[in-house]
């Protein structure tokens, strides 16, 4: 694995208030690779923000360490920390722009203290605002900008000091789906073009699916599952991960249909209702039609949900397969051999004798 740019080692953060103790982060060890987009997903209160805020020490960990680009930030003095923070950009759900300043001045503020001349600052700010697509709105105040435009200003501001890492705390959670899409595209672009490592916090699996390379799933302060996005989607181990994945897919709706005894899933004798899920990145073969031919069964696709994740198709279909009992059974086994995850949801197979 390539050099990690961020590393958490046995990180703990406990908040103590008069009334109670909150273990926001519990013994987290993670490595985030240079140049990737890393997602952290979890429900509200899972500890995502606290974990990420330990990267730039907005939150001081109770124990454990965080290393950013070779520097142990948990061991820095206030002064060293201020310098280090310039290398770590951050954007927020509520943007946190300064309302008394124009877009231009908001970005310029982040260049304060870097020893640039007025001319250099002007050029840099213009370049940044152009990069995020706001060259037309440079002199607008935040109150005159839409949510998406505000987030673009915030991104330009976060990029001002040429950071190596960009932290995004629910950066798209206050935005509509279309704006979310364009902001995610911008994050992807700056990741690819500028080589900035991006850490994305979200409670939406769609965000992970669209742009992340690796993902960590958090629950009650712990990382319960971690890995490459494709393999997590293809083979989730934890229930919470499956729940998150189900929010992005309609495949699981079949269970509701069965429960409600919907006519769509009522089977005639000899039929099997099954969910077929593609697990590997190599499902280009026309498996369903070849099964139909090879085993002389009829495959009726009720619906499907296929998606591209990290450039590879992933998803599945819900089908009704009908035919002779042993042929149906053989075709299911064949599909499994081809690496498809087969789940029989409802079975009305009958023995060959009774059909005959």
């Amino acid at each position, binding site marked *: 694995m390539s050099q990690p740019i961020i590393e958490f080692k046995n990180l703990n953060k406990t908040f103590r208030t008069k009334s109670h103790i909150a273990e926001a982060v519990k013994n987290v060890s993670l490595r985030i690779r240079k140049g990737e987009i890393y997602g952290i997903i979890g429900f509200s209160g899972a500890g995502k923000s606290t974990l990420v805020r330990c990267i730039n020490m907005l939150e001081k960990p109770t124990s454990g360490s965080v290393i950013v680009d070779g520097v142990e930030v948990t061991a820095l003095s206030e002064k060293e920390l201020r310098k280090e*923070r310039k290398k770590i950009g951050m954007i927020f759900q509520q943007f*946190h722009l300064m309302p008394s300043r124009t877009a231009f001045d908001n970005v310029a503020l982040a260049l304060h203290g870097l020893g640039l001349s007025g001319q250099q600052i002007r050029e840099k700010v213009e370049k940044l605002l152009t990069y995020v697509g706001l060259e037309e709105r440079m002199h607008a105040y935040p109150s005159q900008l839409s949510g998406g435009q505000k987030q673009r200003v915030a991104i330009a501001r976060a990029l001002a000091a040429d950071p190596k890492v960009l932290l995004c705390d629910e950066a798209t959670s206050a935005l509509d789906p279309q704006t979310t899409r364009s902001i995610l595209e911008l994050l992807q672009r700056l990741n690819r073009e500028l080589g900035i490592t991006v850490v994305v916090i979200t409670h939406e699996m769609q965000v992970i699916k669209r742009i992340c390379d690796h993902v960590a799933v958090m629950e009650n302060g712990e990382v319960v599952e971690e890995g490459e996005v494709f393999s997590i989607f293809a083979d989730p181990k934890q229930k919470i991960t499956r729940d998150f994945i189900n929010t992005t897919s309609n495949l699981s709706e079949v269970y509701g249909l069965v429960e409600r005894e919907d006519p769509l899933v009522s089977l005639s004798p000899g039929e099997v209702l099954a969910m077929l899920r593609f697990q590997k990145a190599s499902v280009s073969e026309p498996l369903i039609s070849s099964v139909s031919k090879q085993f002389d069964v009829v495959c009726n696709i009720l619906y499907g949900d296929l998606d591209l994740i990290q450039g590879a198709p992933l998803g599945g279909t819900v089908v009704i397969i009908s035919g002779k009992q042993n042929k149906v059974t053989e075709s299911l086994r064949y599909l499994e051999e081809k690496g498809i995850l087969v789940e029989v949801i409802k079975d009305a197979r009958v023995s060959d004798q009774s059909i005959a």
Partner: protein
Amino acid sequence: MQEFLTKVLPNLSVRVPEFQKSIVDTLKMLGLSGSFVFLFGILLGVVLILTKKGGILENDILFQPIDKVINVFRSIPFVILISLLLPLTRVLVHTSIGVKGAIVPLVIGTVPFFARQVEAALSEIDQGMIEAAKAMGMGTAAIIFKIYLREGVPALARATTITAINLLGLTAMAGAVGAGGLGDFAIRYGHNRYMTDITWVTTIVLILFVCLIQLVGSFVEKRSTH
């Protein structure tokens, strides 16, 4: 015209120079003590906001005493404060009467009020903005001057307006105990010698001052709100 004024304002028209001096005295008291109040009030308000719980320099040892002293001073009625402060006033300005003598009690009586107003104004600033500033690598001084005292301008303008109007009221009260100014003028003639025309005109002048302060305050607030 002259005749008309003499008829309507019989007592004032023969005391115009004294009236003018009392206006100047009031303005002097307001300007001088106001400047000190503004300076110390902002200073204390900023210290409070920085050191209170959740502030960027959270520090109970500093916050608690300041907080308590402000509460104590705010609960002392101004007339009593004036006599309590007499010895201090004499030491500081070598007199306890006139405009100079009034400055000390006016400042000490108003700073606690203004400091609280400043604290309230600055706590309107979204904590997220402070977080963003910290994440940008800004230090304490930059956060004070570039965020609190910049983004807080509209709320600070409001706080300053209220305080200035309050202070104007107190200068009139200080007048009652020998500080000079419009309050003194009104009490000496209007109240003690039943010269109602003087009471009325003084009141109108004070109302005009209040309106002027309001106007300037609203203007600053509007100009700084985007």
